[in-house]
């Protein structure tokens, strides 16, 4: 039993490294079955063991963040303690804030993790717990890193606009930018459609999902993808890893004759709305970072909805030809299900739509090639526009 648990812990430690969340060998995963197993020896073992014991959970991850996340989170933790407030929509939905732990004692760490799914311990790393499985903690680590990244760059641009940047912010920004991975230059070729049968659809979705994650256009546990064929929408399941979609796709009849979509992505409603409005069959949704960051850059200082851009922005906004729409996760009254599909289907079909503070939706007529290329191009465009916007302010 214990060997199995150790292997499980090791697998998730490797996955932290593959996702770029930790440098190889740095993530510490602790899993409890009959015994407590660690992915590696560490000076923090006692701390993590205390968390497992006092929280009664099955798994705790301690993730010393890889760069640029370390620079970013250290800066945010110093500035925002006792808690980092995320600005992106998805993290705000599932995390209220990210506590900054004051000291590396079991009492302080347990107190933070009794409140929240994850927390940041300055100088050490992201801590997250999973009641059910290591995956739960992994999702939290991934969310904390994403939320920190988005907040850091979005806050920086806002401060530049407001003229309130200080020396520390400039230094941290320069350090983080120096460690940014370069934007992807080449989009891999994907299977060409139209696809005639279920099997080739599922294979194409798995391939496209993997490529989207590999290009860094979404973290594996987020985003979603679908393809409609013969009145059935094949769509990734909620919480499915986009780079491992085998067995993670639901086939949902578009005539509403089955509730098989109960386990589908929380954006099922948006995907089916799109299918009705737009004849393109392939839909891809990622969370490319600079598109998310730039979508939250609003120059309207006197806007009545200043703090509610993501749900109630009254303006028509664009990055070049790509519209930015408000909308929350899912199918509620303020959900993106009402705003994104008409915007993407407009003008005979746009190349993409950015949902404010959340992510990007793109489509392809018969396969995912164009959808992926557009997703990538929109991110590259937003990255360029972001630094151009900064360049207009004296550094």
């Amino acid at each position: 039993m214990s060997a199995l648990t150790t292997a499980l812990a090791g697998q998730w430690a490797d996955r932290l490294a593959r996702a770029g969340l930790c440098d190889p060998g740095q993530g510490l995963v602790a899993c409890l079955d009959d015994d407590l197993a660690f992915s590696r020896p560490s000076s923090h073992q006692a701390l993590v063991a205390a968390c497992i014991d006092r929280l009664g959970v099955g798994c705790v991850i301690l993730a010393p963040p890889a760069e640029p996340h370390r620079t970013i989170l250290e800066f945010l933790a110093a500035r925002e303690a006792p808690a980092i407030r995320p600005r992106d929509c998805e993290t705000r939905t599932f995390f209220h804030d990210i506590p900054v732990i004051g000291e590396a004692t079991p009492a302080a760490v347990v107190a933070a993790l009794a409140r929240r799914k994850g927390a940041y311990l300055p100088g050490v790393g992201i801590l997250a717990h999973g009641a059910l499985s290591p995956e739960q903690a992994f999702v939290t680590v991934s969310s904390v890193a994403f939320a920190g990244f988005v907040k850091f760059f979005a806050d920086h641009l806002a401060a530049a606009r407001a003229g309130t940047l200080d020396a520390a912010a400039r230094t941290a920004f320069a350090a983080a930018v120096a460690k940014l991975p370069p934007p992807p230059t080449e989009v891999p070729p994907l299977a060409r459609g139209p696809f005639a049968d279920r099997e080739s659809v599922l294979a194409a979705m798995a391939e496209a999902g993997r490529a989207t994650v590999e290009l860094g256009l979404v973290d594996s546990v987020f985003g979603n993808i679908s393809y409609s064929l013969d009145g059935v929408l094949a769509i990734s399941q909620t919480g499915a890893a986009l780079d491992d979609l085998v067995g993670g796709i639901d086939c949902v009849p578009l005539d509403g004759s089955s509730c098989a979509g109960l386990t589908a992505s929380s954006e099922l409603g948006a995907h089916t709305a799109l299918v009705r409005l737009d004849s393109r069959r392939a839909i891809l949704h990622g969370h490319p970072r600079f598109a998310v960051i730039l979508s939250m850059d609003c120059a309207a200082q006197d806007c009545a909805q200043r703090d509610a851009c993501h749900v109630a922005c009254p303006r028509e906004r664009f990055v070049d030809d790509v519209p930015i729409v408000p909308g929350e996760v899912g199918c509620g009254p303020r959900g993106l299900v009402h705003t994104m599909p008409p915007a993407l289907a407009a003008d005979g079909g746009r190349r993409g739509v950015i949902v404010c503070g959340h992510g990007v939706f793109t489509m392809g007529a018969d396969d995912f090639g164009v959808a992926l290329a557009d997703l990538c191009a929109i991110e590259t465009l937003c990255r360029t526009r972001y630094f151009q916007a900064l360049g207009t302010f004296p550094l």
Partner: protein
Amino acid sequence: MDQPSAHILFLDLATGACRREPLSPARRHADGGGRSLAGACFLAAQPDGAAGRFDAPATPVCLFPGGLAGYGLPGASFATLVGRSPHTGGVLTAAVPGGLGHGLARAGLAGLVLTGRAAQPNILVLDGRGARLIPAGALAGQGTRAVFAALAPWLGAVAVGPAGWSGSLLAMAVADGVHPVGRGGSGLLLAAKNLLAVVVTDGLAPHPAFVINPAKAGGTADSADVPELAGPADPAGPADAPGLAGVADPAGLAAARAAMLRLIDASPALAGPCGFGRFGPAALLDLTAGRRMLPTRHFRQTFFAQADQVSAPRLEALYAPRAVGCPGCPVPCRRVSATGAVLPDNDALSHLTALLGLADPHLAVAANTICLDLGLDPPGAAAALAFFAEVAGREPRPEMILDGLSALAREGAGATLSPLAVKGVALPGFDPRGAYGLALSLAVGTSGPDPWGGLCLAHELLRKPVATDRFTFAGKARAVFLGENVVAAAGAFGGCPYCTLAVGLEEWALAVAAVTGVPTCAGDLARLGERTVVRERLLNAQAGMDAAADQLPGLFFSQAGSSGDGINVAPLSRPDFLAARAGYYRLRGLTETGAPTDERASALELPCLR
């Protein structure tokens, strides 16, 4: 600080004697309300601490609104009914959906502790004139549809049907005319007190004078002229709740509410195009069918080829029902047709079709509607009919079903029930062989097999918060332990079990802290939930229940389900099940017989078992 504080009302139905006790802040902090506080008051009110019969006059019945039930939070209006299980003599807790919890809380009540037995059937009315007992007259023994029509308009109500008066172990209380109230004989608890209904009506007084005087009660409810089933009264706005304790941090409560709504909106199972808000919980039938865990022909099979003929979308197409929900809920989950037929939820639909081997959607809807009218547990009744047919060596005949249900309601305590049960309660519409955490949670549930009790449907079927492998016991003991704590804590504050798919203890903690002004974190609430479950365990142990009560029927260990489509439905491994149960006992702080250890009881500030 001139805030009204909630009161617990102690009422002796035999004498009409009544006293109020303010709920102390310490008590409120320790137990919240709802399931937890009701359990605490039930334990405290035991005659001499001894386990009596469920229908002994001294045995209390507790009806408590969730601790946050009056504040307009989404999916948070529930009350909980706690008494002794007619099946086991241990504890029976039943969630009461609808407006009753909301109404009780807004009337300034933290709970009702009912003892004694009235000389004649009564209705307990809470309204602008306070609390009154009204003789039920000819309404007692009538269908719940007539009862609710006669009581309308109400803010919330719970009532007993004919099955309760005949003493059937399948008697189920019904809330607001459409909601089943738990299983395991909830209707018998009220009937044992000679109480037909508890009703909260509109026009609540600022400081209700609790006048209980059955002898001089104002008139008999007249049932001669039964109007159409009227809906509940419109829930009052927040300003119109004179009895509700004030909110320490209104902005914090608004933020908590917004967070809860965001999570519900983001939940595919609740707000998605296939979710409960669109089709009701019967939406799950398509999943149990597709996963080959749909109990079929009295559990002899786990796959029902005609499932698509009776699915929730099919019922929706046939009936075009309107949605009915609890106050403040954004995903109303009950479906009522234009003629007042109540569409079945998942357990009812599953057992009224696949378990009987019948694929008639009209029959399922008619049967469910009759069950609610009779105050009869639909899945339990369907399981009994499926068992009769099996014993008789024939297939159930459609034309016998409705009569069979009426007969079950008439026969009372003598009726034979399905042995495929835990703690006397028939297993629900999820085959244990198809999800192992669920199997464990069905076995160890304190009041019987509740598929929502350990929250395993969330991760084993609905992939929330992450998916787990449904065909393994690994990690499931902990999942059930933690899941039970979450569900129990939510139940303490009025939480709907369905909404626990989306709303977690972090959000509940935000709301509790905002209302009470006491800093509260998710971990605190998990401990409150843990205390609640262990207290129920203590009540069961006091009643002499042991590990044998936490067992699944032998069939599930010896017979395979219906494999196919690449899904292998093997019998459960008994050693693996027992190992998982032992693991659960260790985490829960129970002895090998399933009783709380003195150590755990003391740590949770509960009395020790003698």
